């Protein structure tokens, strides 16, 4: 993506599973370890980017935990909404809260969708 002032912002959405067997000892001790690990892996894979580019790995765990880079992403979106609508004061944090809630609700819906699809599929094949 290109921003208005010419600085490129590159975003990469990653959905990670925190219950991976090889990362289980670390992830059960450190909160958000899998998102941090996946963000570092994306940083390594995009290490050949231009130095002036801003890279935001948007890593999300399937159970709902977000990486701290999403705050930067949502902050820029909320800042743009705030400047468009011209609302002052504490309403700026309301935009960030709305965007976080939208991510969380989307995750809940997709979680239920993935559970129901496999339950129905198993029910059709076994019963």
């Amino acid at each position: 993506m290109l921003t208005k002032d010419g600085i490129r912002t590159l975003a990469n959405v990653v959905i990670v599973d925190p219950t991976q067997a090889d990362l289980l000892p670390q992830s059960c001790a450190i909160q958000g370890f899998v998102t941090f690990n996946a963000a570092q892996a994306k940083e390594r894979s995009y290490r050949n980017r231009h130095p002036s580019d801003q890279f935001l790995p948007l890593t999300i765990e399937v159970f709902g935990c977000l990486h701290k880079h999403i705050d930067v992403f949502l902050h820029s979106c909320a800042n743009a909404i705030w400047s468009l609508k011209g609302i002052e004061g504490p309403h700026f944090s309301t935009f960030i809260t709305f965007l976080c809630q939208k991510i969380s609700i989307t995750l809940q819906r997709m979680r239920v969708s993935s559970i129901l699809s496999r339950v129905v599929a198993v029910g059709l094949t076994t019963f």
Partner: protein
Amino acid sequence: MVQLQDSISEHLHHHTLSNMLFNGTFEAHRVRILSCFGLKGGAWFTTRQIFLGFQLFSLVFCIAFCMQLVLLHPLIANIFQCVCTHPIDLMGIHLLSCVHGNKRIGTHDVIYNTFVPMHEMLVSSGTRTITCASFNHI
């Protein structure tokens, strides 16, 4: 109402973390608790359902609530095998991490199609999007 939801959420945090996290749970379940109570992990619980996009239907709320409290949902109580022939544990964690089908990609696509065009429209309005495929050729 929001204050009541916040206090309920606070009690849920205290109850789950104190009684379930440190009392001999399995590693996968501990990871699930830590992830559910991670950064913005419980944001859905304090949502005011004033828009259609913020509405949680009863089944979605039930499953999300059971996940948050580390409870077993009755839907997956009698299912012992996934479509990929992998055995399912009591909490149904495999159902979320199974690579069979396109549901994991679907979650990625929904998040991408919701937020990246919004960022593109608001912050970088009128400019082009560089996809990963085109970025590799730069």
